[in-house]
C-alpha cells in the first residue's frame, strides 16, 4: 500500500493525520502537485492511495475512511453526513469527521490574523484537535516547517471554485484547433513564396472538355474509376450512396480538375435469386423488375449529381459474351473443378430451390418455420438439406434431395499468383486500411474452391454443355459487369481493361464488398491470363449508421435515395453532409440534428457567410469591380496559410481522404472570416486614402479566396461551386489553374475585374423543419405519413412501390392516413394526460388500424414495438 502526497496540499493533511492516528502501515511518497498519480483523471489528484488490490483512491475523504475502517472504526450515518457536508459545502473525524474538518479549516483557522472571537466553541474545538499529536505531525509533514506559505503553490494551481465560473462569461472567439494553427507562425520565406505564386495569375490551360468516348491517352495519367454496382431490387439508401457512387463521383470530379484522364463507370447489378424473388412477389418478369429499378436508381443518382461517364447494367449481351469468355479461359487453363452438391429440388416447380425458398422444421430446436439458411428462433445456421419436413415456399410441396453437379473456381491453385499481385498492389496503391485487413484475413484463413454456378434461370448462362440450365453465381458474374458496362460504353473497352501498363484502376465500395474485389475477382482475371487491368487502389468505406432509432429496411424507416429529394434540402447540401460524415476509417452516423447543425454552422455561418461578405464588399464599396490590392505582410501571411491548406487538401484528395480534405476547405473560409473581422473593411472604407486603400486590398484578397473556395468545393458541391463562380463572374480557367501540381493559389480576379450579382448561397435549416423530417423518416409511422403541408413532401414514389407490393395500394394509402391521424390523436391524449381508459381504447384502435395497414401492404402484421415505459 502506498500513499502519494504533495507538499503544501491541505487535503494531504487529512490523510496524513488519519494515517498517524490509525497507525496503519503504509509507505508515503512525496510527489509534485502536477504528477498524475491517478492516470485517468484529467487533473492531477492528490493525495492518492494505491490499495493492495491495485485500485486507486483519489479522494482524501475516502482514503481517511479506509484508514479508519481497516483500523476498526466505521462511519455511522452522522459521520457520513459530516464528510458529505465537508466535500459539498465546506470545500467547496478522534472521529474521522474531526480530522477531515480540522484539516480543511487549517489554512484559515491557524492564521493568526483570523479571529474566531464570535465563535468560541469553534476555536476550542480547533485547538483541541490541533493539539492531538498526530495532527501536529501531519502539519509538519505537509507544510515542511514553512507555515501557510507552503500552501501557496498548491492553491495557485487550483481551478476557481465552480460557482464563480459563469457559463456565459467564457471567451468564445475561436475554437482551439483554429488558434493552434494560427500559432503555427509563417516564416518570411513562406510569405514571399505565397506572394510570388499569387502574382503569377491564371495559366492558359487548354480546355479539357470531355469528349466521348474517353480512352486512355499516351503521356497522361489514365484513371479508371468504378463504384460497386448497386443491387437492382432495392432503392439505395444513404449508406449505399456515400459508400460507393458519391465517393467515386467526388474523386472522379477531382481527378478531372487535376487534369487526369478519367473514366467513371457504374451500373446496376441485375441477376440473381433476389431479383427472381422480387419478380415473383410483384407479379412481373425479372426483366421488368430490372427495367423498373434501373430507372429508379438512375433518377436518384442524377438527382445527387453523380456524374457517371456511363451508367449501365449487367443484363446485356456484352455481359454474356465477356463472362463466358472469361469462363472458357479459366476452363482451358484448368482453374475450374467439378463437384457435386446436394440440393433440394421441387418437382412441381421444376427447379432447384435456393436456400431462401425452403422452409421446414429446425433440426436443432424443432422450430417449425426455420428458413433454408438459418433458424429464426435459435439463430443457428442450417444447411437446407438438413431441414426436417422441408417445404417449397412457393407451392408448399415437399422437395426431394437431388445431387447437382457444379463448377468451382480453384482459388487455392491461384493463391500464390494472387499473393504476389496483392503484395505489389497494396504496397504501391492507395488501399484503405480496412481493405488491406479484410483481404489479409481472407488469405490467412486459407482459400477454398468457390462455386461459380447456380441452378437458376435469371443469370448469365453457363456455356459448358454439361452445365446447361445453370447460370453463373452472382459473385462471379457481377464484377464482370464493370467490363461489360465499359464495353457497352465503347467498343474499345479493352484499351481500359486489358491495359494495366497505362491504366490505374480505382474501385470504390463499402467494406462488405472488399473480398470480392480483392480476392475473388482478381483470381478470375488472373486465371483468365488475358492481361487484364487489376485494381490498383481499393477504397472501402466503413458503415454509415442511422440515428438512434430502430432502422427497418422493410418498413422504410431511414432515409432512402429517392426521399432525400422530398425533404426540400438541396442536393448539394445532402452531398456536403454525407461527405462530411463519410465513414472514412471508422463507422459514422447520420443524424438529422447534426445535419442541421453542420448546415447552419459550417455552410451558412462559415463558408457561405465568408463568400457572401467578400462579394458584397466588392459590390457595395467598389461598384462591383475588384479593387487594387497592395499586399502587406499580414496579407501575405494569409496567402501562405491559405496556400498551406490548399496543399493539404490536394495531398489528402490524392490519397482519397475525401472527408479529411473537406475540413481544409472549411478552414480556409474560417481564416477568411477572421481576416475580414480583424481588418474591418466596412469601417476603413469610410476613412482616409490609406485606409480606403487597405479596405480595397482586404476586399480583393477575400474575393480571390472566395474564388479559390469555389474551385476546391467543386467536387463536393458542383452546383454551389458553379454558382459562386457565376456570381463572381470568374474565368473558367481558374478551375484548372489552382489544382495543378501541389496546389497554386493565384490571383484569378485581378484589379478591375467586374463581378456579377452576389446573393446568399445557403439557407438555414430550422429546428422545427428538422424535427418534422426526423419524425417522418425515423418515427414508427414514418414512411406512410402524408400529413405534411407541402405537396412536395408526400411519400416518395418508390417507397410507395416498396410498401404496397402485393397489396392494395389505394386502400393502403387510406389506411396509412388513418393510422397517422389516429397516432396524432393518441399522442394528443397522452400529452393532455387524459383518463387511462380513454387512452387505452384509442391505442387499441390504433393497433387495429396498423394491423389492417400491414395486411393491405401485403406484409405479415408485426407486433407493434413497445416503447419504453415511462413513469
Amino acid at each position, binding site marked *: 500500500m502506498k500513499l502519494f502526497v504533495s507538499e503544501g496540499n491541505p487535503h494531504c493533511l487529512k490523510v496524513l493525520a488519519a494515517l498517524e492516528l490509525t497507525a496503519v502501515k503504509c509507505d508515503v511518497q512525496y510527489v509534485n502537485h502536477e504528477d498524475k498519480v491517478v*492516470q*485517468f*483523471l*484529467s487533473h492531477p489528484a492528490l493525495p492518492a492511495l494505491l*490499495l*493492495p*488490490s491495485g*485500485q486507486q483512491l483519489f*479522494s482524501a*475523504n*475516502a*482514503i481517511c*475512511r*479506509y484508514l479508519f*475502517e*481497516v483500523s476498526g472504526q466505521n462511519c455511522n*450515518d452522522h459521520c*457520513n*453526513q459530516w*464528510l*458529505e*457536508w465537508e*466535500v459539498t459545502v465546506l470545500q467547496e473525524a478522534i472521529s474521522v469527521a474531526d480530522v477531515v474538518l480540522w484539516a480543511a479549516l487549517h489554512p484559515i483557522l491557524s492564521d493568526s490574523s483570523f479571529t474566531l472571537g464570535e465563535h468560541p466553541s469553534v476555536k476550542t474545538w480547533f485547538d483541541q484537535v490541533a493539539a492531538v499529536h498526530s495532527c501536529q505531525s501531519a502539519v509538519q509533514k505537509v507544510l515542511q516547517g514553512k507555515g501557510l506559505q507552503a500552501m501557496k503553490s498548491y492553491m495557485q494551481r487550483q481551478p476557481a471554485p*465552480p460557482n464563480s465560473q459563469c*457559463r456565459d462569461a*467564457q471567451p468564445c472567439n475561436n475554437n482551439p484547433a483554429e488558434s493552434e494553427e494560427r500559432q503555427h507562425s509563417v516564416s518570411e520565406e513562406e510569405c514571399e513564396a505565397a506572394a510570388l505564386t499569387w502574382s503569377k495569375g491564371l495559366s492558359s490551360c487548354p480546355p479539357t472538355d470531355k469528349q466521348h468516348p474517353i480512352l486512355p491517352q499516351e503521356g497522361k495519367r489514365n484513371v479508371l474509376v468504378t463504384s*460497386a454496382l448497386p*443491387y437492382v431490387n432495392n432503392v439505395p*439508401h*444513404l*449508406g449505399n450512396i456515400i459508400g460507393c457512387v458519391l465517393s467515386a463521383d467526388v474523386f472522379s470530379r477531382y481527378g478531372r480538375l487535376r487534369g487526369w484522364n478519367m473514366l467513371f463507370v457504374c451500373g446496376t447489378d441485375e441477376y*440473381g*435469386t*433476389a431479383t427472381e424473388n422480387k419478380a415473383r412477389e410483384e407479379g412481373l418478369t425479372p426483366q421488368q423488375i430490372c427495367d423498373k429499378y434501373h430507372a429508379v436508381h438512375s433518377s436518384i443518382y442524377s438527382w445527387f449529381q453523380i456524374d457517371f461517364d456511363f451508367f449501365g447494367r449487367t443484363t446485356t449481351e456484352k455481359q454474356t459474351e465477356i463472362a463466358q469468355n472469361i469462363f472458357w479461359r479459366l476452363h482451358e487453363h484448368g482453374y475450374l473443378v467439378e463437384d457435386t452438391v446436394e440440393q433440394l429440388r421441387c418437382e412441381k416447380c421444376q427447379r432447384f430451390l435456393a436456400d431462401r425458398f425452403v422452409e421446414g422444421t429446425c433440426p436443432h430446436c424443432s422450430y417449425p418455420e426455420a428458413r433454408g439458411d438459418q433458424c429464426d428462433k435459435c439463430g443457428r445456421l442450417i444447411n437446407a438439406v438438413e431441414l426436417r419436413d422441408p417445404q417449397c415456399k412457393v407451392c408448399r410441396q415437399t422437395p426431394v434431395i437431388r445431387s447437382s453437379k457444379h463448377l468451382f473456381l480453384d482459388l487455392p491453385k491461384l493463391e500464390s499468383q494472387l499473393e504476389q499481385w496483392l503484395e505489389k498492389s497494396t504496397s504501391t496503391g492507395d488501399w484503405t486500411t480496412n481493405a488491406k485487413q479484410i483481404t489479409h484475413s481472407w488469405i490467412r484463413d486459407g482459400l477454398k474452391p468457390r462455386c461459380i454456378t447456380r441452378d437458376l434461370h435469371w443469370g448469365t448462362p453457363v456455356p459448358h454443355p454439361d452445365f446447361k440450365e445453370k447460370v453463373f*453465381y*452472382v*459473385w462471379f458474374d*457481377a464484377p464482370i459487369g464493370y467490363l461489360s458496362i465499359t464495353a457497352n460504353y465503347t467498343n474499345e473497352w479493352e484499351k481500359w481493361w486489358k491495359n494495366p501498363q497505362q491504366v490505374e484502376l480505382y474501385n470504390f465500395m*463499402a467494406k*462488405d*464488398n472488399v473480398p*470480392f474485389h480483392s480476392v475473388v475477382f482478381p483470381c478470375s482475371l488472373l486465371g483468365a491470363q488475358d492481361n487484364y487491368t487489376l485494381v490498383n487502389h481499393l477504397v472501402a468505406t466503413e*458503415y*454509415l*449508421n*442511422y440515428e*438512434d*432509432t*430502430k*432502422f427497418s*429496411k422493410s418498413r422504410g424507416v*431511414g432515409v432512402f435515395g429517392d426521399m432525400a429529394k422530398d425533404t426540400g434540402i438541396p442536393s448539394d447540401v445532402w452531398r456536403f453532409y454525407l461527405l462530411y460524415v463519410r465513414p472514412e476509417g471508422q*463507422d*459514422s*452516423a447520420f*443524424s438529422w*440534428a*447534426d445535419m442541421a447543425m453542420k448546415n447552419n454552422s459550417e455552410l451558412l455561418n462559415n463558408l457561405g457567410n465568408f463568400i457572401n461578405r467578400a462579394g458584397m464588399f466588392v459590390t457595395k464599396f467598389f461598384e462591383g469591380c475588384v479593387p487594387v490590392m497592395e499586399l502587406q505582410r499580414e496579407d501575405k501571411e494569409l496567402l501562405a496559410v491559405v496556400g498551406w491548406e490548399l496543399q493539404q487538401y490536394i495531398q489528402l484528395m490524392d490519397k482519397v481522404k475525401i472527408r479529411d480534405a473537406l475540413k481544409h476547405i472549411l478552414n480556409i473560409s474560417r481564416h477568411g472570416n477572421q481576416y475580414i473581422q480583424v481588418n474591418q473593411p466596412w469601417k476603413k472604407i469610410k476613412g482616409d486614402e490609406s485606409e480606403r486603400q487597405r479596405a480595397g486590398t482586404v476586399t480583393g484578397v477575400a474575393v480571390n479566396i472566395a474564388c479559390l473556395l469555389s474551385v476546391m468545393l467543386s467536387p463536393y458541391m458542383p452546383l454551389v461551386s458553379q454558382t459562386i463562380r457565376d456570381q463572381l463572374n470568374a474565368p473558367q480557367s481558374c478551375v484548372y489553374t489552382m489544382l495543378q501540381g501541389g496546389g497554386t493559389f493565384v490571383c484569378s480576379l485581378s484589379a478591375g475585374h467586374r463581378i456579377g450579382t452576389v446573393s446568399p448561397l445557403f439557407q438555414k435549416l430550422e429546428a422545427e423543419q428538422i424535427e418534422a423530417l426526423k419524425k417522418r423518416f425515423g418515427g414508427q409511422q414514418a414512411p406512410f405519413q402524408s400529413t405534411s403541408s407541402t405537396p412536395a413532401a408526400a411519400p416518395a414514389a418508390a417507397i410507395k412501390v416498396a410498401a404496397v407490393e402485393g397489396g392494395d395500394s389505394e386502400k393502403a394509402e387510406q389506411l396509412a392516413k388513418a393510422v397517422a391521424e389516429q397516432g396524432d390523436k393518441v399522442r394528443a391524449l397522452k400529452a393532455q394526460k387524459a383518463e387511462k381508459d380513454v387512452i387505452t381504447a384509442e391505442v387499441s384502435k390504433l393497433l387495429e388500424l396498423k394491423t389492417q395497414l400491414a395486411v393491405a401492404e401485403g406484409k405479415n402484421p408485426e407486433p407493434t414495438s413497445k416503447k*419504453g415505459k415511462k*413513469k
Partner: protein
Amino acid sequence: MALRELSSLEKYLGLKKPNKYSTQGDKKVPVLQNNQGPPLVGLITIACHLVKEAKRSDLLGESAESRAVVQQWLEYRVTRLDGCTKEDSKSILKELNIHLQDNVYLAGNHFTLADTLMYYGIHPLIVDLTVQEKEQYLNVARWFDHIQHVPRLRHHLPPVAVLRNRIYTGRHH
C-alpha cells in the same frame, strides 16, 4: 431532483413505506427526518442510510477497500457531477470512460450504490449526447446501458437508446 432519486432508490431497494423528505438551502440539499435521532442531511448520507435500512449493505461494498472506493465515487458524484458546466461534463465523461475501460462497474466487479447514484446523476448528460459523442465515450455508454437495464432501477428516468442500428447491411452474394 435529488428527492426523485431518493424515491427511486427506495423503490429499487424495496422499502415498503416511503420516507418524507424536505430540502434545505439554495442547492436543495435533501433532508430526512429521522425518528431515532436528528435529521440526516445530504444525498449520499441519506442514500447510505436507506441502503442499510434495506439490509443491502452489499451495495456499499463487500470489503474495506471496496467500501472506500464506493464512497469515493459517491463523493465524485456530488462534488464533480452535480452542477457541472458543459466543459466539466466533457472531462467527467472522459475520466469515467477511461476508468470504465477495465471496470465493469464503478467499484470493480460488483454493482453498488455508486453505480445507482452515478447513473441518476449522469442521465441528463447522456440524454444530451449526440450519437457520435456516445461513440466517443463507448465505455460510459456500455456501463450506462447496463445500469439502466438493472431491474427496477430506472423508475423516474426515461430509457436512453445507446446502441445504434446500421443503416444498411451487406449485399447478398
